[in-house]
């Protein structure tokens, strides 16, 4: 649900990073914030608990500049991953244009990934959205850890629709921009 403002010639698109608790959603945004030129991004807003767990959301606007006279901007949001924050998670999905699912590649987090993916389908469904029809990519994070599931298994469990996927180590920035590039291009395509 992008908003196109012909009066101020602006397009704002909302991209949401989804996934189980501690999978690295906030880390993705922090890396983007750190690396993009300061004049192209706004403030990183984090509504987090004292222990730095996301309570409501993180928010980072990134400016693409003027494209054919339209100031184009991506609003990047994360959701709180912990299961019991579902009410907040659902609110953040309102008006989403594109979704990144950040999966935790560790073997012991496989069930949490699957549960979170189901929850994503369910919450989008309540807004009348189908994940198979909106811009969607998957990021397999934490690929540097020793106890990760094989990529094939993660794909089989989490990506039956074969959407674009990326391996990542968000703490080091690996795969962060590949993921963001892919989802933002899909969003732009869906607009035009």
């Amino acid at each position, binding site marked *: *649900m992008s908003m196109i403002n012909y009066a101020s010639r602006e397009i704002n698109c909302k991209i949401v990073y989804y996934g189980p608790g501690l999978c690295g959603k906030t880390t993705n945004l922090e890396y983007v914030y750190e690396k993009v030129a300061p004049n192209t991004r706004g403030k990183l*807003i984090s509504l987090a608990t004292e222990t730095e767990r996301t309570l409501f959301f993180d928010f980072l606007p990134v400016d693409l500049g003027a494209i054919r006279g339209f100031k184009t901007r991506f609003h990047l949001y994360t959701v709180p991953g912990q299961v019991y924050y579902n009410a907040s998670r659902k609110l953040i999905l309102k008006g989403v244009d594109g979704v990144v699912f950040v999966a935790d590649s560790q073997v012991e987090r496989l069930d949490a990934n699957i549960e979170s993916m189901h929850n994503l389908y369910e919450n989008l469904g309540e807004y009348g959205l189908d994940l198979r029809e909106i811009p969607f990519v998957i990021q397999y994070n934490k690929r540097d850890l020793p106890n990760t599931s094989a990529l094939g298994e993660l794909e089989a469990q989490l990506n039956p629709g074969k959407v674009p996927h990326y391996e990542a180590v968000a703490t080091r920035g690996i795969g962060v921009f590949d993921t963001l590039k892919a989802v933002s291009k899909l969003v732009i395509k869906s607009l035009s």
Partner: protein
Amino acid sequence: MAAAGASSWSFEERDFTRIDRLLQGFLYDSNARCALLVDRTGQLVTTAGEKPDFDTTAFASLAAADFSANDQLATMIGENEFSSLFHQGEKESMYLADVARRVILVVLFDNRTTLGMIRIKVKGVVRELAEIFREMFDRSATAPQGSRFEAGFADEAEDEIDRLFGDL
């Protein structure tokens, strides 16, 4: 969500002129400092009055989240919605009101006016804004589907994405 209007909507020059005129009149009548219109998804639609000296993009995302969270609280206690919210500060206060279930009017005011005055004046302006927004949503819903941008927009945007995120 479909009931709340078109899934995507656009905002044209003539809408802007009508809305701006309404908001200016409201600010004059109520003596409030500034009015912001924020889409429920957290995007800033427009501002009127004193130019805010804070980050309006961040403000819009937080205001929408605030409103949505309160909406859920309303449901939990058996209300359909809280159609308005009031946050009182020592010097600055803000009043948030729902417009047609899709947009939030945020009014910033100080001790040059009173909450009662804001409340009365907001009622009128919300009614008129709701009319305008309903027209806009209806127009978006019935507009023929097709590209809303000139040819080449997507290609140019993709190049820009590569340039901006390319070597990072």
